[in-house]
């Protein structure tokens, strides 16, 4: 789960990281008030769960409450890479001496946390990795012993800071790791981490991603989820316990098992079609879940045909066929549905479907044939 900038900062502050004063506003008036309270020059920043808001005009630095109100009016409602801006963060200013980069993430290969630091901040770290790789420090943190004092020294010496600023920097590293571990984050990124002219070490922009599997023990973080900003069908799928991702094509796809569904998208593309979504109904889906899934998939207006790809494993093919028929009865989908049923008791399942289904349901024996059929039907415009 990705946090908004202001949520991430709030969390980092709880772990002792320093930030500038700031307030969230959902209306231009609130932005004005926030600016009055903070005083001086402020930045009005679009809160969106994507990068590149600066280039998109989503950040404006202003000198008065009036200007802040105007800026917020421009930014709120703006579309940034498909995300509609629903709130802005009004943040006080600082006299910046240097900008640096600092992040901690889960490293899958090493199975440890990876800390990345660079004296080059404010720009994309991948760009830095290409242009100035020598400025990057990488170190692994073993979860069994945590971030060690000697590692903090290594990064602090690399920062080139000294005196009290170096101490604050070291404390920042320590607190960031505590936040990373304490909040079950898979990523905490501070970019830029700034040193002010008076030697303070501040988090200017941050990105925090919390492991979804850990949310049961972080109720406070789970509550930050912005259901309004999510795709409504993805949101509905999530609530129904289904895995659904909306895509741009016209062939709606369902199946049981994440790997099989990913593969189904692939064979549809290989057959010349474009998948409209990813939808995993899981292993033991019942009629109700299947009908919800069908409803979610077909509620996408671009969908012209549906490919339901089932491998009967422990759930036998005949049972799946019955479940699908029961689900069909609950909906009134007119779009053509291609069902491919394979695995345990597949033949029995196909027979049940052949005998009982409405005209718009077609069965195929193999994934490849079914994909070709679904693509063909979609190209015909769903008739």
């Amino acid at each position, binding site marked *: 789960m990705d946090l908004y900038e202001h949520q991430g900062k709030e969390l980092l502050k709880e772990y002792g990281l320093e930030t500038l004063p700031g307030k969230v506003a959902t209306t231009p008036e609130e932005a004005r008030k926030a600016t009055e309270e903070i005083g001086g020059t402020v930045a009005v920043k679009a809160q969106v769960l994507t990068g590149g808001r600066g280039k998109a005009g989503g950040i404006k630095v202003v000198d008065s409450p009036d200007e802040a109100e105007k800026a917020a009016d421009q930014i709120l409602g703006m579309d940034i890479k498909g995300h509609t801006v629903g709130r802005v963060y009004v943040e006080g200013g600082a006299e910046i001496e240097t900008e640096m980069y600092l992040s901690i993430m889960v490293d899958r290969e090493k199975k440890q946390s990876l800390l990345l630091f660079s004296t080059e901040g404010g720009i994309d770290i991948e760009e830095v990795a290409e242009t100035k790789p020598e400025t990057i420090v990488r170190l692994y943190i073993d979860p069994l012993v945590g971030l060690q004092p000697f590692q903090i020294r290594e990064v602090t010496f690399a920062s080139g800071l000294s005196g009290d600023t170096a101490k604050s920097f070291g404390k920042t590293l320590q607190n960031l790791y505590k936040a990373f571990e304490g909040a079950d984050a898979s990523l905490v990124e501070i970019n830029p981490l700034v040193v002010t002219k008076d030697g303070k070490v501040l988090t200017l922009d941050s990105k925090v991603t919390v492991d979804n599997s*850990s949310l049961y023990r972080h109720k406070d973080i789970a509550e930050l989820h912005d259901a309004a900003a999510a795709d409504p069908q993805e949101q509905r799928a999530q609530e129904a316990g289904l895995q659904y991702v909306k895509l741009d094509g016209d062939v709606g796809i369902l199946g049981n098992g994440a790997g099989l569904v990913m593969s189904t998208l692939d064979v549809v593309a290989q057959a010349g079609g474009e998948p409209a979504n990813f939808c995993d109904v899981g292993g033991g889906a019942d009629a109700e879940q299947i009908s919800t899934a069908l409803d979610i998939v077909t509620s996408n207006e671009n969908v012209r045909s549906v490919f339901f790809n089932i491998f009967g494993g422990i759930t036998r093919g005949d049972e799946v066929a019955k479940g699908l028929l029961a689900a069909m009865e609950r909906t009134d989908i007119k779009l053509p549905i291609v069902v491919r049923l394979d*695995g345990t008791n597949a033949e029995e399942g196909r027979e049940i479907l052949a005998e009982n289904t409405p005209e718009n349901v077609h069965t195929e024996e193999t994934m490849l044939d079914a994909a070709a059929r679904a693509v063909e039907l979609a190209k015909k415009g769903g008739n």
Partner: protein
Amino acid sequence: MAILVDDNTKLLVQGITGREGAFHTGRMVESGTNVVAGVTPGKGGQTADGGVPIFNTVSEAVEETGANASVIFVPPQFAADAIFESLGSDMKTVCCITEGVPVHDMMRVANYLRFKDATLIGPNCPGVLSPGQANVSIMPRSIFAEGNVGVVSRSGTLTYQVVNELTQMGIGQTSAVGIGGDPIIGTDFIEILSLFEADPETECAVMIGEIGGNAEQRAAEYIQSEMTTPVVAYIAGFTAPEGKTMGHAGAIVSGGDTTAEAKSNALRKAGIRAAENPSEVAQLVADALGK
């Protein structure tokens, strides 16, 4: 010869009285697996369906029954502890079926594993099945056949799909291992491939990968430099968009290396047969075996 689980496996089921645990214990027993014990704290002394004795702790279960492998069905918040409990009793093979185990829990487990002479499969995996010997999994036994192909996969249903096609072509399996779809898993492709390489009966190995991470690239290097057993690979998720989790917590494109295309290319560069779809896998295996 099978890998990881076989005729000598004495299986312990952690979370045997839960819905999933009870259901799959029945299926594993039906498949002929020697399920010697179950553990559910507080239900020690009871007996599960199929006459399997239940204990309060793994330590007690191992002492009484000599269990040497365990399969875990406990809810995600208790999974790491269940793994530690198995490791604490020096279990050699641990399969954690549970989905949704927190990543930080798994980092602790995975780093602790370095101390232990144990293999952890999973979490978020279908387990291990060695046809004719032992079924320590939630996979459907009926689609398998005894034979000479080893299968290792990050996906459950894709394993079934491929195994089913193999079996229908008359090609059986030594063992099939689902290593799990999470970002941090106990055992990666390389460890399993090395077991297949060492197994004289495995004549061909199938590796089924997907988007996310770079385990397939590392496996490609290993296969090229260390393996003589032919390997057929397939990577799912060519059409996955960046930044979206595709069902499995670990299946997410987060950079150039993590796409299905990059992985397939790396495999082909290393001289490995990489299929475009699951059906092609079975055909390539048949070719490799000279059938």
